């Protein structure tokens, strides 16, 4: 077993996996990694089962050391990672030696969430069958909270080091591109005034810096809802809700399980993994899409990674 020590965690780094199932009817958040593609890839590069818990680092400012050689991989956002001042290539495995420090600086504008997987996996107790942290519920992960300098994490197994495994360049996403989010109209969509529906599907919106693991507020033309208060509804992953001032908010893994604002529909899950990586002020548009077609695409994605 290797023991890893967090030496810096200034913003928000937490243990995450696929999140919880079968708990939303109890009021618990789903939680889990924001970008499943980068998460699966990180585990794949170190030879783990792809759903093994990892450290999710938001915007950087994080470093870690180890007491034994450990094979690691870093994917997702580019954080200009270095080991004792030597650059580390993301999207491929590497070995961190004892006495050296892996340092994630701030994001370069290429993504917001990065994923650090270690060969053998972190020894984290499961809480409702998941290692995912939900800080507001004081649940899961490392004692129910984000990581802090001085925290110690063990790997489950001491695995032999493995040769470098790299990601083909065409499989590394570009996180600085404008986005078109495919959305399945639903929930309250039909009850919005026609003009609001038109505004929503024809205008350019942009991500903002008002974002965290629960959701992303967008900037752009406001969407008017004229029907007053509505009953709360259960909230699926990727819902676009419209707040009282007309702002669209895309809800992510750590959203609450119920929501009382009118909702326009649900963003394709694969597009959501790109959206979370978009730097504030990235332009985006919504295009209506058919759930059955998106389903086939999502099933191919999970089949490829062997995730049920």
């Amino acid at each position: 077993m290797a023991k890893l020590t967090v030496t810096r965690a200034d913003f928000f780094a937490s243990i995450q996996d696929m999140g919880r199932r079968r708990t939303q009817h109890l009021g618990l958040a789903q939680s889990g990694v924001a970008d499943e593609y980068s998460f699966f890839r990180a585990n794949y590069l170190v030879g783990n089962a792809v759903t093994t818990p990892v450290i999710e680092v938001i915007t950087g400012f994080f470093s870690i050391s180890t007491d034994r050689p450990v094979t690691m991989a870093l994917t997702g956002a580019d954080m200009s990672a270095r080991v004792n001042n030597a650059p580390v290539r993301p999207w491929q495995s590497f070995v961190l030696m004892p006495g050296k420090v892996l340092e994630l600086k701030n994001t370069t504008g290429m993504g917001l969430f990065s994923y650090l997987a270690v060969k053998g996996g972190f020894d984290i107790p499961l809480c409702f069958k998941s290692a995912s942290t939900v800080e507001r519920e004081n649940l899961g992960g490392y004692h129910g909270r984000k990581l802090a300098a001085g925290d110690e994490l063990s790997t489950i197994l001491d695995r032999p080091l493995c040769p470098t495994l790299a990601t083909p360049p065409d499989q590394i996403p570009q996180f600085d591109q404008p986005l078109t989010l495919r959305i399945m109209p639903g929930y309250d969509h039909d009850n919005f005034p026609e003009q609001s529906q038109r505004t929503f599907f024809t205008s350019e919106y942009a991500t903002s810096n008002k974002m965290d693991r629960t959701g992303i507020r967008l900037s752009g033309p406001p969407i008017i809802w004229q029907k007053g208060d509505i009953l709360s509804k259960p909230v699926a992953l990727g819902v676009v809700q419209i707040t009282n001032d007309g702002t669209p908010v895309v809800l992510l893994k750590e959203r609450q399980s119920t929501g009382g604002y009118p909702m326009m529909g649900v963003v394709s899950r694969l597009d959501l993994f790109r959206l979370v990586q978009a730097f504030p002020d990235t332009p985006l548009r919504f295009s209506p899409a058919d759930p059955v077609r998106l389903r086939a695409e999502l099933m191919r994605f999970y089949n490829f990674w062997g995730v049920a």
Partner: protein
Amino acid sequence: MKIEVLSEFSYLIRFPGDKTCLPEPTKLGIAAHLLRDAFAEDWVEVVPVFADLLVTLSARSFSEGADPEAIISACLEKLERQDEVLVEPRLIEVPACYDEEFAEDLPEIAEQGGMSIEQAVRLHSELTYKVYAMGFCAGFAYMGDVPEPLRQPRRSSPRTKIPVGSVAIADFMTAVYPLAMPGGWHIIGRCPVPLFTPDDQDNPTLLRAGDQVRFHPIDKDEFYRLKAKWRN
């Protein structure tokens, strides 16, 4: 009831009803039970909230030849026929201390309703409430219907921290805060019993959608006695 394809792996089942005429939460509770039974290993989430039920399924449930929509329809038909075993709603007594120390907003609520604090407490605790939904945070139950004279809209400025166990009301709903959270509800008492016990993974919440709930008024001595008991 209407079945709507919501997203890749999710459906929304809409029950007839609105804010003034909500469907019986036991009905959604039975539907949820039938759906979990029918999908066995393949349901990921079945979440009843007021008049809507979210069903999220595993990728496997959509494999070649499978017809999850037909399974959902069959469950809803069973629900209409009511020939399945009907689940009796659980009646749960929740102790609540309405002492002024724990009930910051009770004087105002009573005054607005044109009654004494004692009358307001009696009114809140003599009714049986229904759990319409779980949400907001782990173990938080939206219960109704609060009697008309006690109804007040949410506070215009939410409090940054509402203490654990706070009994609160907003509009036609009442709830107990399982965790210390920010919130805009009016605080009228405090419950000494935990609403969320994550160590008990099979049964982590005191309340569930479809339950019936009565608040049982207790004094401060009883509050601290129960609080100490639950701490051990």
